[in-house]
């Protein structure tokens, strides 16, 4: 079997770290634990990531890129704003279901431990791939007259806060029905909240 390349090794470290961080939290997870779980010496792990903060930052970049690419495909699909909202909600819940660690990481590590990211990814730099696509989604919605013009963050907070909140209470096993059963009504609520009157 061919030896994995450095990039492949990095991805496998990130996958494991993502799982640990999202389950155990940022502070509970140490570099030695990560090294142990992937069967690597701690010294070698530092060859790939110079610190736990750098690893955490690369993870958020990685997730933002995945979500960003998904939304970009939706933005470029040429459908109307309401369908785009349906598609974004569907995509977000699908990722939350298939790869729960990504959304968990976003909510429980990135948003809850801002101090970790303060120096290595100021403001929204690390999630820019994702935020940029959301900006384009909103901008196009307003430009074509379907969405109401307002401050970007008021709209962004409404959209993402709603989705994040649903995934969060789903993760706490509070929702009586599976997440996907809420998709349509959630998308409808978002659309009605944001559309032009």
């Amino acid at each position: 079997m061919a030896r994995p390349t450095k990039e492949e090794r990095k991805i496998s470290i990130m996958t494991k770290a993502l799982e640990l961080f999202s389950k155990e939290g940022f502070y509970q997870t140490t570099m030695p634990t990560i090294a142990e779980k992937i069967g690597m010496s701690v010294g070698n792990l530092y060859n790939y990531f110079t610190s736990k903060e750098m690893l955490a930052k690369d993870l958020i970049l990685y997730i933002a890129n995945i979500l960003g690419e998904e939304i970009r495909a939706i933005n470029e699909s040429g459908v109307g704003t309401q369908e785009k909202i349906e598609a974004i909600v569907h995509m977000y819940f699908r990722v939350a279901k298939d790869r729960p660690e990504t959304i968990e990481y976003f909510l429980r590590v990135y948003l809850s431990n801002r101090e970790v990211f303060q120096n290595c990814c100021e403001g929204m730099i690390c999630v820019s791939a994702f935020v940029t696509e959301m900006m384009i989604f909103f901008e196009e919605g307003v430009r074509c007259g379907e969405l109401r013009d307002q401050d970007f963050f008021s709209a962004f907070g409404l959209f993402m806060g709603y989705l994040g909140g649903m995934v969060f209470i789903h993760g706490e096993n509070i929702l009586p029905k599976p997440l996907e059963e809420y998709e349509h009504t959630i998308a409808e609520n978002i659309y009605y909240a944001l559309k032009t009157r």
Partner: protein
Amino acid sequence: MPSKPAKVIWLQGITCNGNTHSFLNDPSLGALLESIEFIHHPILPCKKTLKELVKKLPKSDILIFEGAYRADFERAGVKMETLLVTLASKTKHIIALGSCASFGGIFKEASPEHISGILFDKESESGPLQTLRKKVITLSGCPIHPKWLSFVLDMIVQGKKITLDEYRRPKELYGYLVHNGCLRNEYFEWKVDSDHFGTKEGCLYYAQGCQGPFTHGSCNKILWNEVSSKTRAGTPCVGCTEPSYPRTELFSTKTYMSIPAEMPLGIPKRSYLALAGAAKSFHIKRLEGKLIDDNA
């Protein structure tokens, strides 16, 4: 330098005289008048009055047309369609001076169907001088910078080749954006805005609608009165050299969900937003404070 001065006619269409007055502020006017001679000019001493001019429309080397064109607008009892077209056919070079002569400008707003520039009507090349287009040089601006005119007159007199853009504007003057050479560029890059007129600090793009990133002209290279420009003095560029001038709401940037409706020329929306988002995340003390702090 040619031995005989070039013969110039300065004809006015529908105008506020802004370009005429601007031209009088050119410190090199005295020297220029040694190589050109006005057969007719509305203000400067010259050979013929307008009434004398229309009696027998003479030949010339350069025809400068200031103001907007309307076929039935009269000067000294002669309709513009006759006056302009005849003088234009009897000259070697034609200069559309100012935004009205270039694209219709502010006067076009009064009667959009009947008023245009002499070669262009906004973006479309449908003005009365279409058949003479090769002779036309567009000098848009509201008003035009006096040095832009003296530069072009000098180039013509010297027999030098003038490279033109798609609107027949000299590239040496309009190849730049007003944004080029603006002292606020660093503020633009780091997204530090000024939200009122007259400040030394901040970029005037987001909050005040500065058109510098979309406007071709060398206002920040060839300074007004040799010392300043709109953006240097703290007012936004209103885009007066472009065929789209005048926009409505000159002092605000149209946004959709806080995102500018128009991206700086040549920059894709996605890239711009990603960069702008990153730039906004930084807080640079040097750019956020006053340049001169009176209370320090």
